């Protein structure tokens, strides 16, 4: 990516994380492989689920410097120096609710690693709550108007990422952009594809779609023993795509890792979270998989071609998050003779007690979990003798959504009180109370969104 002129040479895009909770060290073999290949490369991180961004907005409210991906440093520290040294730009949506804050942290990290000053760019304009207007309020879903709004973020596309990379960014930090745009942006910068070349834009978008969940295309989230076996799955390698100028791409993975890439893994991920495969809507293009074809080129190498594209939608999707009350949960185990009956009785007791305490209208969910949760010893010797058996060790789970924290406490209190007031032999109570966010979506006219990018020192 050192030159700004259009290149015909393929671009390798590696993925270092597929969600906020992903492995911190996954990018290391990816970067090692990109360096070994020695061709133009980019590393992307996707760490921003719908919910993650709303949580980040809440963090930023409490601490103005916070609100970016909490694992940012853990993701970048192992690979940043190598990427800078080998001119592998990094693109990530780890800016979350605070891209300038993430950029500042990346500069600090670079200094701590003894690197020269980096060019860190941020993409802005996704946060619609920061530029709230009456026009926006009219677009919001009705349900969100009655609740306290937490965030409204519109999905931006690939263009600002591409502009920042063309200007020489070492790292591009975004907030909400469509996940596949994290790969399409570098492809636009590398090949100078026209923004109306729908087939190429769709191919680049699907390349990003294949990459955005990390190991989900390389044998992660796939193993089914005896049916779909994955070699060395504990050491699964993250994906690298080699994208060609005409849009076809080859899916592969980091060298010297476990996992596998074949027609099955690629097909599962190609269709993941897709609804109508002929009309996958993104801010950049409408992608169409009707004619897509896969070909196994060799071990862990699958070629994807035939992706078609259609004109991008006139509106952009925005995710609206608002306060959604509290999730109250409590669990307790029963084991031995009549365990299921005792667990069910415990659930009835909690329901009756909550009714007595004025929460009779509360919708309670009850689960009876599992086959072994309390009989076994810590070392697991019990399991060796009870590999498969009928349930005589079950765990009751009770959950409800409530508007007030005090009501959540009533529920967890009643589950805890089962120790002495419930059926015989209950053990292992755990309770939790979690604030909830509700989410919805709305569609914003493209011209009402002011997207941009800038370097941050």
């Amino acid at each position: 990516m050192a030159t700004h002129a259009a290149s015909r040479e393929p671009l390798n895009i590696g993925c270092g994380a597929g969600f906020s909770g992903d492995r911190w060290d996954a990018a290391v073999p990816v970067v090692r492989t990109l360096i070994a290949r020695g061709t133009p490369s980019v590393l992307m991180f996707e760490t921003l689920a719908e919910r993650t961004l709303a949580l980040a907005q809440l963090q930023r409210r409490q601490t103005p410097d916070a609100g970016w991906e909490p694992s940012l440093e853990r993701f970048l520290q192992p690979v940043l120096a190598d990427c800078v040294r080998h001119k592998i730009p990094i693109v990530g949506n780890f800016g979350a609710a605070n891209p300038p804050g993430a950029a500042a942290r990346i500069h600090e990290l670079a200094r701590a690693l003894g690197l020269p000053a980096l060019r860190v760019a941020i993409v802005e304009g996704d946060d619609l709550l920061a530029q709230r207007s009456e026009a926006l309020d009219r677009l919001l879903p009705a349900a969100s108007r009655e609740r306290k709004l937490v965030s409204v973020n519109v999905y931006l596309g690939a263009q600002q990422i591409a502009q920042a990379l063309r200007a020489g960014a070492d790292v591009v930090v975004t907030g909400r952009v469509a996940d596949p745009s994290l790969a399409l942006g570098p492809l636009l910068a590398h090949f100078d594809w026209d923004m109306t070349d729908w087939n190429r834009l769709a191919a680049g978008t699907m390349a990003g779609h294949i990459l955005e969940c990390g190991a989900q295309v390389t044998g992660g989230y796939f193993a089914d023993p005896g049916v779909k076996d994955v070699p060395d799955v504990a050491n699964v390698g993250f994906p690298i795509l080699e994208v060609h100028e005409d849009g076809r791409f080859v899916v592969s993975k980091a060298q010297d890792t476990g996992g596998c890439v074949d027609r099955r893994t690629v097909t599962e991920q190609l269709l993941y979270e897709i609804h109508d495969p002929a009309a996958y809507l993104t801010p950049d293009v409408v992608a169409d998989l009707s004619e897509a074809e896969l070909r196994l080129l060799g071990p862990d190498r699958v070629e994807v071609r035939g992706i078609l594209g259609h004109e991008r939608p006139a509106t952009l999707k925005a995710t609206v998050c608002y306060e959604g009350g509290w999730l109250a949960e409590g669990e307790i185990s029963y084991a031995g003779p009549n365990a299921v009956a005792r667990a069910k009785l415990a659930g009835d007791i909690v329901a009756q007690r909550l009714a007595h305490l004025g929460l009779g209208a509360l919708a309670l969910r009850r689960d009876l979990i599992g086959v072994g949760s309390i009989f076994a010893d810590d070392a697991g010797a019990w399991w060796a003798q009870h590999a498969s058996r009928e349930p005589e060790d079950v765990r009751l789970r009770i959950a409800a959504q409530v508007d007030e924290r005090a009501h959540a406490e009533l529920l967890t209190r009643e589950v805890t009180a089962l120790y002495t007031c419930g059926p015989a032999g209950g053990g292992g109570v755990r309770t939790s109370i979690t604030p909830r966010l509700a989410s919805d979506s709305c569609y914003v006219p493209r011209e009402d969104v002011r997207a941009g990018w800038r370097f941050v020192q």
Partner: protein
Amino acid sequence: MSGARDIALHRIAHGRTGDKGNRCSISVIAFDPSHWSLLVEQVTEERVLELFSFRRPSSVRRYLLPRLHAMNFVLDDVLDGGVNGSLNLDSHGKSLSGLLLTLTVQLPSDLQETT
């Protein structure tokens, strides 16, 4: 179908669940292309609607991808509100491909299970 056997879909197909809001999408992919036409005939919108009826889907749609020997089901309003609203431990509904793969299909005697 003389000599046909009842088998679980899991023996001849694999799949993955995705979610967006209260909408669940589940792919069903033939391991062996020779099973594709059988899937098209037997893994229908009607049968999937019946299998998931306890979740009260407002609609079930099937999309076919013959070049990939795959189909994609889109089930609306089956996630109790989705990841931010459901009381389910699996609020994404990620385990639901496991339910779809329990569907019984009839395998003609001239075809073999993959697994």
